[in-house]
């Protein structure tokens, strides 16, 4: 069931964001959160964990503080409920539960607090991206595996497709069709964009969701689609892109990747942003399917590398301007499609992609790698981007 926004005769809740300013160092929290990790600075000299993020070790003053995964357990020291806040975003969301947790790694953190956490009890910590796109500490009950969903306030940290309307931009591909099917199974209502409907394509007689004409290479088409459904769509899953090996028509490649994303950004996403604070299921995310070769260029796919790099650069540059929306990069490796017949496995399958998109939306992460190749390359990049790019 699709939950409707609030009373249409009154101004909708504005798309506000919580306090967004952070030190550069604290950006490490967002990096960890965007990958679904729980990482803090750990001193390379004495091993002490640090929080809040620091420039020198609180134990030995050493400067070698590296972001490392740390244990997620802790004990709730105190709890409170903010009923009056000076911040406009939190004024929209009060009462807001928060607390102080002594983590098992020895630091004390103020946290967003799940309604079922009791003072003195153990909690399980996660780092989540808040509506400002910053990494924040969230304390959950240790035993509730569905904790991010069980506290309605925590919807602010996730983009669960259940009850939301989703536009999947390119239904001409099996990846778009698979994503649409998975989203419907996850409880979403799906519009499925079809470019050049006069030209046949596989699966056209059994399309999931509501097919509609949408050609991301044509600004007029994007404008028309935005006019038709822009006021209703809560999530965009953009599966348009250039994922072929080798070289090819560079302009056409840029049209279906970079320019396609740019047209969405200019003509469609603003409609989502305007409704990103409204109702129980506000507009919340824009997902882009991006080749991992956009992050680490692939000599066997130079054109796709450039096209995906352009899309990736665009999305990253837009992120801060698009809050409170989450801009999710779904990095894919070589696709399991006709263009990669000669390539041995592993390849990214339609099922892997569809499930990864659902998981990313539910977890509220912003950078996911789909399939073994993309995961491996992303891990290499995180390990040492300079070496990865040089090699």
């Amino acid at each position, binding site marked *: 069931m699709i939950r409707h926004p609030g009373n249409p005769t009154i101004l909708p809740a504005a798309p506000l964001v919580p306090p967004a300013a952070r030190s550069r160092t604290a950006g490490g929290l967002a990096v960890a959160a965007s990958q679904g990790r729980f990482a803090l600075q750990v001193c390379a000299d004495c091993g002490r964990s640090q929080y809040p993020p620091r420039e020198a070790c609180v134990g030995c003053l050493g400067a070698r503080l590296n972001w490392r995964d740390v244990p997620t357990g802790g004990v709730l020291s105190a709890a409170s409920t903010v009923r009056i806040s000076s911040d406009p975003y939190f004024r929209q969301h009060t009462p807001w539960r928060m607390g102080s947790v002594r983590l098992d790694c020895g630091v004390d953190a103020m946290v967003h607090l799940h309604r079922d956490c009791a003072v003195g009890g153990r909690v399980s910590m996660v780092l989540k991206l808040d509506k400002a796109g910053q990494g924040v500490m969230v304390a959950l009950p240790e035993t509730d595996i569905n904790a991010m969903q069980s506290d309605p306030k925590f919807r602010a940290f996730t983009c669960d497709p259940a009850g939301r309307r989703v536009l999947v931009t390119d239904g001409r591909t099996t990846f778009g069709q698979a994503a649409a099917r998975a989203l419907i199974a996850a409880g979403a209502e799906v519009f499925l964009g079809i470019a*050049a*409907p*006069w*030209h*046949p394509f596989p699966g056209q007689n059994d399309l999931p969701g509501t097919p509609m*004409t949408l*050609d991301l*290479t*044509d*600004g*007029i*088409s994007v404008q028309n689609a935005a006019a038709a459904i822009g006021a209703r769509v809560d999530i965009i899953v953009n599966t348009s892109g250039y994922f072929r090996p080798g070289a090819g*028509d560079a*302009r*056409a490649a840029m049209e279906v990747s970079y320019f396609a994303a740019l047209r969405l950004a200019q003509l469609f996403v603003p409609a989502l942003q305007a409704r990103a604070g409204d109702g129980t299921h506000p507009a919340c995310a824009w997902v882009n399917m991006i080749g991992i070769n956009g992050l680490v260029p692939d000599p066997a796919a130079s054109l796709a590398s450039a096209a995906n790099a352009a899309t990736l650069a665009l999305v990253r540059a837009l992120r801060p301007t698009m809050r409170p929306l989450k801009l999710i990069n779904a990095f894919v490796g070589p696709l399991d499609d006709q263009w990669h017949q000669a390539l041995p496995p592993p390849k990214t399958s339609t099922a892997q992609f569809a499930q990864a998109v659902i998981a990313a939306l539910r977890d509220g992460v912003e950078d996911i790698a789909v399939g073994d190749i993309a995961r491996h390359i992303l891990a290499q990049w995180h390990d040492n981007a300079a070496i990865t790019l040089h090699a």
Partner: protein
Amino acid sequence: MSSLAAFAADLAAGSLKIVDLTQTLAPDFPTIVLPPQFGQCAPFRMEVISRYDDAGPGWFWHNISVGEHTGTHFDAPVHWVTGKDLPNNTTDTLVVQNLIAPACVVDCSKDAANNGDYLLTVATLEAWEAKHGKIPAGNWVLFRSDWSKRSGADYANVLEDGAHTPGPDAAAVQWLVDRGVLGLGVETIGTDAGQAHTFTPMYPAHTLMHGAGRYGLQCLCNLDQLPPTGAMIVAAPLKILGGSGSPLRVLAIVPA
């Protein structure tokens, strides 16, 4: 009275009328689609430069992009490998005298309108001549199929084995070349039939016509408003340097 003055007077008096044979150049108009491993003809695209706004407060204009063979368009001989070495074979070197020429309209709509595999044959052409006289050299031959009255998927009519749209068979094309026609004009996306890749030679309208230095006109419409003979066609492509063709406005001047 000179013939031009008479022409002007007839136009003014309405005893001659202009028929627009051109489809509207729009982003969603179907284009030729080659197998995916080949390069593709760009569809028509337009983007606003300014619309009386901060990018241009008092004026409105677009930037457009388009393939040479998109929408209602002209094929020059250089378009095909068989015509690549001919003189005056590109859009900028075409003999301008040829850009206004009379047309013979071969109406096959009765049989072709509902048959994507309809082929124009020598027999049909000979029957036409029997009725209307010999096709003069230097005339356009316009193949009326009424496919311009279709749109979208019905117009492109792409099935699993490719497009199924009417066109001439190889013998008919050779027959037209031998008649010395200026070129072949059609309502479908190509001068060749949709299944012409199975013909011998492949794509005869392209292979034989362009090999003989003749022209093509595609995606025409309103052929049903033309007489079998007596229409003058104004079909002047853009003067693109070394171009293989171009979208254009095609006009027919016919007796009212």
